[in-house]
C-alpha cells in the first residue's frame, strides 16, 4: 500500500511540496524497521551536508580537512554499528590466543538497515563536491532526500549526486510512458524476488544449515540455486527500486546487466551491482593509482579494492575471503589476458565463470568457515546421505525440488529476453507485451512465495 499511496500523493500535491512529502514518506519507510535509527541517518546527513558547503567555500587545504573530517565521521558511524563487534570479537580471540586474560564486551545492537548503502551514497556526494563535479546542495531538505529517497534507501542502487540531486527539483508529471515502464520493471522485479529467489531460498537455507546431513547432490543443487537466488533477490530489488522511482518520473542508474552471461570475472563485475563496482572504482581504485602505476601496483590495487568490497558486504571473515578470492581471480585473469572468441569458447568461458562465481558464493552465503568447508568437502568427497534427512526437508519432497528446478530453467530461458524488453532494447508488439506481463502477474499468484523472506542485501 505504501508505494501507491506515496505515488498518488506525489502527483496530487503541488510541485513545491513534493520534496517534503517524499522526505516524510522516506522517513516513515525507514522507521518501519528500527525507528530510533533515523537519528543515525540524520547525523550522517547533517555532517555531510555541512561538510560539503564548507568544502565549496574553503581553500584547497581547508577543503581537504573538511573532506577528511567528513569521511572519518561517516565511516566511524559505519564502523561502530557494523564492525565494532567484529573487531572486538577478533581482538578477544587474539587476546585469548596469546594468553592475555582480558576481553572487551561486544555491543548488542542491530545493524541499521541499509547503513552501508546510504553511507556510501553520502560519501560520494562529499567527494564529488570536493572534486568540483557537483555543487554543494544548500537546501537541507533536498539533500536529505538525496540520501533518503525511499525506493533506493535500503539496498541501492548507490546513486551519484550528479544523476539524482537535480531530479528532485524537476517537475514530473504523470505520464503513460513512465508509469508503464516503471510498472513493467516492478512486476519483473517482483517475479524475480517472489517467484524465483524465494522459491530457491526454501531449499537453499535448510541445505546450508544441515550441510553435513545431506548428500552431495543436494549440496550442488543448493550452490547453483543460491547463485540464482542472490541474483534474483538483489537484481529484483533493484528493478523494484528503479521501477518505483520511474513511475514518479525519476531515473535511477542501472545496477545489473545479465551478469551470468559473462566470460570472465572482470566482465562479471562490470555487470553485477554496478553502482557499487563503479563506486569502488571511482573512490578507491583510481585514488589508489588505478592502472597508472605499473602492472604490479594495478594488481595490488585490484586486490585491495576487492578485499574492502568483501568487508563492505559483511563483518565476517567469510565475506573478506570472498572479496579477496574475487580480487585474486581478477588479477590472474588480467595477467593471463584470456580471450574468449568463437561460440564454443564463449560458452566455455560463460560456464567456467558461472562455476567460479557460484563456488565463491559459498563463502558469501555460509555463516562461518566451518559451514563453507562442510559444503565444499561434501561436494568434493561425493558425500552420500549420512543418515535420515532432518525434518525440515519433509515438505521438500522430490516433486517440490523438481518443480523448483523447472521454474529455474524457465527463468534462465526468459531472463535475457524479458530484461531486454523491460530495458527497451528489445521491441515486441504491444499485444505480446501485454500477455507477457499478464503472465508474470499471474505467476506471482501461482508460484510466488509470499512468506517473510527479507531481501538479502537489506542486511548490508
Amino acid at each position, binding site marked *: 500500500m505504501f508505494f501507491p499511496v506515496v505515488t498518488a500523493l506525489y502527483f496530487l500535491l503541488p510541485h513545491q511540496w513534493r520534496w517534503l512529502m517524499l522526505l516524510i514518506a522516506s522517513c516513515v519507510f525507514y522507521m518501519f524497521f528500527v525507528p530510533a535509527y533515523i537519528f543515525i541517518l540524520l547525523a550522517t546527513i547533517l555532517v555531510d551536508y555541512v561538510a560539503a558547503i564548507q568544502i565549496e567555500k574553503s581553500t584547497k587545504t581547508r577543503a581537504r580537512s573538511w573532506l577528511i573530517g567528513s569521511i572519518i565521521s561517516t565511516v566511524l558511524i559505519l564502523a561502530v554499528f557494523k564492525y565494532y563487534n567484529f573487531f572486538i570479537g577478533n581482538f578477544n580471540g587474539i587476546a585469548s590466543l596469546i594468553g592475555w586474560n582480558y576481553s572487551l564486551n561486544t555491543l548488542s545492537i542491530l545493524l541499521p538497515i541499509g547503513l552501508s548503502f546510504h553511507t556510501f551514497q553520502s560519501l560520494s556526494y562529499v567527494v564529488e563536491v570536493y572534486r568540483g563535479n557537483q555543487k554543494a546542495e544548500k537546501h537541507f531538505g533536498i539533500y536529505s532526500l538525496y540520501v533518503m529517497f525511499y525506493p533506493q534507501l535500503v539496498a541501492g542502487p548507490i546513486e551519484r549526486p550528479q544523476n539524482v540531486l537535480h531530479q528532485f527539483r524537476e517537475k514530473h508529471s504523470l505520464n503513460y510512458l513512465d508509469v*508503464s515502464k516503471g*510498472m513493467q520493471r516492478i512486476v519483473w522485479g517482483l517475479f524475480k524476488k517472489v517467484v524465483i529467489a524465494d522459491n530457491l531460498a526454501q531449499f537453499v537455507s535448510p541445505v546450508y544449515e544441515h550441510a553435513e546431513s545431506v548428500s552431495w547432490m543436494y549440496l550442488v543443487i543448493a550452490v547453483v540455486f543460491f547463485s540464482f537466488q542472490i541474483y534474483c533477490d538483489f537484481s529484483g530489488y533493484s528493478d523494484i527500486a528503479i521501477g518505483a522511482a520511474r513511475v514518479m518520473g525519476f531515473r535511477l542508474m542501472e545496477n545489473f546487466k545479465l551478469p551470468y552471461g559473462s566470460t570472465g570475472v572482470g566482465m562479471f563485475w562490470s555487470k553485477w551491482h554496478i553502482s557499487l563496482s563503479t563506486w569502488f572504482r571511482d573512490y578507491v581504485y583510481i585514488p589508489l593509482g588505478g592502472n597508472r602505476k605499473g602492472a604490479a601496483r594495478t594488481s595490488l590495487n585490484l586486490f585491495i579494492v576487492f578485499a574492502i568490497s568483501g568487508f563492505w558486504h559483511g563483518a565476517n571473515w567469510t565475506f573478506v575471503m570472498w572479496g579477496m578470492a574475487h580480487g585474486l581471480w581478477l588479477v590472474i585473469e588480467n595477467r593471463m589476458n584470456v580471450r574468449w572468441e568463437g561460440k564454443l569458447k564463449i560458452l566455455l568461458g560463460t560456464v567456467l565463470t558461472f562455476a567460479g562465481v557460484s563456488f565463491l558464493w559459498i563463502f558469501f552465503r555460509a555463516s562461518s568457515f566451518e559451514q563453507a568447508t562442510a559444503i565444499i568437502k561434501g561436494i568434493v568427497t561425493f558425500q552420500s546421505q549420512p543418515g535420515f534427512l532432518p525434518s525440515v526437508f519433509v515438505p521438500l519432497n522430490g516433486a517440490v525440488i523438481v518443480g523448483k528446478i523447472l521454474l529455474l530453467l524457465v527463468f534462465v530461458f526468459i531472463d535475457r529476453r524479458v530484461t531486454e524488453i523491460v530495458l527497451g532494447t528489445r521491441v515486441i508488439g504491444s499485444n505480446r507485451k501485454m500477455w507477457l506481463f*499478464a503472465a508474470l502477474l*499471474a505467476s506471482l499468484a*501461482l508460484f*510466488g512465495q*509470499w512468506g517473510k523472506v527479507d531481501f538479502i542485501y537489506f542486511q548490508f
Partner: protein
Amino acid sequence: MKLIIRNSLKVLLAAIVIYAGVIFIFSNVQLIDRRMSSFFIPNMQRNGGQELQMMRDLISNQTKYDAIVLGSSHAYRGYDPRIFEQSGMNLFNAGTSSQNAKGSLVLYNEYLRDRSDVFILDIYDPVFELEGTESNMRLIQNVPTNSAAFALVKQEVKVYTLNAFAVRMASVNVKDEAPNTDYIKNGFCEKKGILYAVEPLNDSVFDANEEMFVAFEKMVKQMQADGKRIVLCSHPLPVSSGLHNYHDKFLARFTPLIERLGVPYIDLTFYTEGFGVNEFADLSHLNQQGVVLYNQLLFQNTTFREAVIP
C-alpha cells in the same frame, strides 16, 4: 490517465485468464503420480491420503459416535478405534496432518457437531507455533463439500489458500493421489516400524503463535456452548534434553487458558514407564505397540473415564 487505467485493466484481465487456464491444466494433468499443481504451486497439497480416506469414511454413514478425536497426526495415529471398541466405545478419529484449531472448528461445524457428544482434543505443542497454512490447504483439497473448503479459506485468506481452493474447484474427476497404506478405519492409521527419524524436540524455545491459542479458545467455547464434553490429551514423547524446557514453556502459556475454560488435560508428555524405543515409530510419533499402551493408560485414567464414558 485514461490510457493507464485502460491498459492496466487489460493486463489484469489477461492475468486472470492466464491464471484460470494454468490452474485448470495444473489441476487435471498428471505428471508421474500426481497432478502438476503439486510440483509447481507452493504449499499445494495432494488430493488423497489419510484426509480423503477419513472424510469418505465419515460421510459414508450417519453413525453417532461415542467420542470423536480431533488434532494432528498424533491424533489419527494415537487413538485406535479397535482398542476403544474393546471397552465398548465407538470412536471416530478426525485428526489430520498438523490440524490446528481453525481446521478442527471447520470440521466440527460442517461435519461433526451432530455426530458425538464427546470430543477428545489431542494437544501437540508445535501445532500452536505453526501458521497452519499447509494443514488447512490439505483439508481444502480433501473435505467433501465446497462449503467446508470455503470456510477453511475464510479462516486464513492468503494467496496459498486461494490457490488451493481454485485447484479444488478446477479439478475434474481427480483420483486419490496418495492412498495411505497405513489406514485402518474410522480415520485411524497404524504405524508399525520406524519410517523416518526426525530430530527430537530439543529446541527449548517455544515460539507461540497467538492466533492458534485464540482459535483454540474459540473452538472449545463453541463446543461447550453446544453442550459437548471435552477432554484434552497428549501422548508420551521420547524424552530429550530440550523437551522439558520446550513443553514447560508451552504449558506456561496453555495452562492458564485451560483453567479458565475449565477443561481437563491429561498430559502424558513426560510419561516414561513402559515407553522405550520400541514404543515409538519415530521421535515424534507412537507406533502401534505404543498406541496400545497409551490407549490402555487412558482407560485407567479416572479423568479420562469420567470425561468420555457416560
